[in-house]
């Protein structure tokens, strides 16, 4: 154990002291910030004030439709953008004015117009939307709003009060509930699997950025031939374990720096102005949080150990890249099955998948969000993960040790199996 700790310490200190570590600690959040910034900026650009004209030969219908579109009823995602919308009703309208609207669209004076042609003797108008390119509302929403406008007009004609019309046409609020421990509790469907998404993202990120470092570190020891010196003084298992802990700790340190920064930010008033709530707002229990951290750590070390094992089989840094795919694949599987898992969190294929170590962190987080997972399954999944990490380290150290005799060519799978058996 002393050997493993020495190796872990060397690995940790050498990396923490390196310029690459300092640069990436600052640069990665900066790059992420930049990406989000560009994203936000581009939404602003496309969402820049739209000028849309509602034209009709029926002034009441035109005004009613204008009001409908301005309210953007039933479309939460766009409601906050209604301020960027300039709606104008023009009715009644002459042929000449209508032709002028086309020119206006072409010269970008307006972004588009909706032409509602009410033929005498019919109730349904003929609707045409003309725009310079993208349509802001979507066809469905526009048809829906025209329907609403017609109903509103008809109701008013039949003598309904404007309050009565409003209350009739108001969107209906709907609650979603979830059965947990035999009781229906409030659950917001869009928030219930936040944990799985965050877990997937963090794990993916951590594995791609740091897990693969273990492989690089293993390979560089092979190419620099340090490993023969090390093997003559330390057990290969200690070497691998030390590497795993050392390189892993570097990743965790960097993430801790970032999380610490986010927490500082969240304590500040800036967080509130950004409109992000605390964890409780997402319906997270402390137990879920504890398991989240546990699964993250175990998942991280599992994938790092896998990466160490793969690193031990190659003799050149450039070959490591080809393995990244193998490492990321099980996580993608979990993500792809997200709908099925949330719908059937207790089905046996899902239970099995959640106990399969490479998939455990993501699938188990999903299940925990969707149901109360039996304690024995949680315990079993933890045990299996710890065992599989140990197993990976063992195999990796075997392969690493025998790899000393290998030069150049990549070993085949049967050869690797023979290496594992070889003492």
């Amino acid at each position, binding site marked *: 154990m002393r*050997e493993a700790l*020495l*190796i872990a310490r*060397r690995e940790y200190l*050498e990396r923490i002291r*390196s310029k690459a570590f300092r640069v990436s600690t600052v640069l990665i959040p900066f790059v992420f910030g930049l990406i989000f910034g560009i994203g936000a900026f581009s939404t602003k650009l496309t969402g820049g004030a739209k000028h849309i004209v509602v034209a009709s030969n029926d002034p009441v219908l035109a005004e009613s439709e204008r009001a409908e579109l301005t309210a953007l009823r039933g479309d939460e995602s766009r409601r906050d953008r209604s301020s960027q919308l300039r709606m104008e009703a023009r009715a009644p309208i002459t042929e000449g004015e209508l032709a002028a609207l086309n020119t206006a669209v072409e010269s970008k004076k307006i972004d588009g117009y909706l032409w509602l042609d009410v033929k005498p003797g019919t109730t349904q108008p003929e609707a045409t939307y003309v725009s310079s390119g993208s349509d802001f509302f979507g066809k469905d929403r526009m048809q829906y709003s025209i329907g609403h406008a017609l109903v509103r007009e008809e109701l008013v004609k039949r003598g309904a009060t404007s309050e009565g019309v409003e209350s009739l046409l108001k969107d209906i609020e709907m609650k979603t509930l979830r059965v947990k421990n035999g009781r229906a509790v409030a659950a917001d469907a869009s928030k219930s699997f936040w944990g799985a998404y965050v877990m997937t993202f963090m794990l993916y990120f951590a594995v791609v950025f740091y897990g693969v470092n273990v492989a690089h570190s293993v390979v560089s*020891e092979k190419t*620099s*031939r*340090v*490993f*023969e*010196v*090390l*093997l*003559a*003084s*330390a*057990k290969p298992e200690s070497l691998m374990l030390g590497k795993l802990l050392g390189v892993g700790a570097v990743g965790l340190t960097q993430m801790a720096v970032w999380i610490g920064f986010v927490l500082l930010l969240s304590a500040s008033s800036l967080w509130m102005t950004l409109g992000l709530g605390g964890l409780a707002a997402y319906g997270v229990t402390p137990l879920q949080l504890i398991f989240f951290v546990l699964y993250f750590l175990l998942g991280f070390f599992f994938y790092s150990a896998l990466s160490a094992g793969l690193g031990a089989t190659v003799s050149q840094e450039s070959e490591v890249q080809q393995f990244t795919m193998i490492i990321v694949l099980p996580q993608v599987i979990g993500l792809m099955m997200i709908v099925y898992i949330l719908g059937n969190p207790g089905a046996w294929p899902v239970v099995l998948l959640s106990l399969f170590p490479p998939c455990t962190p993501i699938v188990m987080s999903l299940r925990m969000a969707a149901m109360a997972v039996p304690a024995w399954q949680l315990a079993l999944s933890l045990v299996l993960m710890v065992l599989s990490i140990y197993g990976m380290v063992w195999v990796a150290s075997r392969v690493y*040790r025998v790899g*000393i*005799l290998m030069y150049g060519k990549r070993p085949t799978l049967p050869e690797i199996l023979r290496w594992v058996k070889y*003492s």
Partner: protein
Amino acid sequence: MAPLVQLDRVSKAYEQKVAVHDLNLRIEAGSMFGLLGPNGAGKTSSIRMMVGITVPDSGTVSLFGRAFTRASLKKVGYLPEERGLYRKMKVMDQLLFMGQLHGLTAEVAARRAHTWCERLNILDSAQSKTEELSKGMQQKIQFIVTLLHEPELIIMDEPFAGLDPVNATLLQDTLLDLKKAGRAILFSTHRMDQAEKLCDEICLIHRGKAVLSGRMRELKSRHERNRVIIDFEGDDGFLSHEAIAEHRKYPGHVEIRLKEHGDAQALLRTAEQHAQIYRFELVEPSLEEIFIQTVGEKVDA
């Protein structure tokens, strides 16, 4: 006293090739042992079994009188054939790490590393990154790594390969000092002249088998002195003497190989009657010649 290293009928084969076959070896304390042989003879394979990097297919390896255990490696210093150092690490950090890995405390490791750097003239580079140093310098660092924990048994695979003559001599002298201090040293080399100069005892391996082993003096005395070198002036008629098997003549200088049991003294008497003799030397056979005689072919070093 039990030998520090004992290999007993050790064999090792890889895939198709037999690397070591039925090798027996003993190394005593306070001696310098040379493991000799051409490239690919099985030297590195034998050494790797001594330090437990590979395990023999058959036969036993004992260190310090006991069957091999990892624990006994604490008393062994191993210099692999392919040198390995952390390229990005500072020299002193590297020495400290390796020392600690061998069980030293940080303080002891630091003190000894300092002493060794001073002794091998690399103290000025102690704070540099390893990759910035020349190959010879790196080799010295590797040398220190091997010796830092004051091992009783020092095993070095081709320790002088790639060194300039000045540094090779420096390291050779260091090894001789360590031997005087009672350590056992085993090193492999394909250079017979080096082994001849340094070793008390050798084992010559050829194609995985030991073809010649024992104390250097005994090996040499077992082989006849059958080479004669003569510097002379005058008539070279003595070259037709019956004791001579063959000769190579240069102006005023001749190198002679005698027939088996050829009488060198009789040759000397004949020669002095013909010419003025400045030098008459009955040369001891070199290790290389013994090897060629034993194996019957040339070493392709």
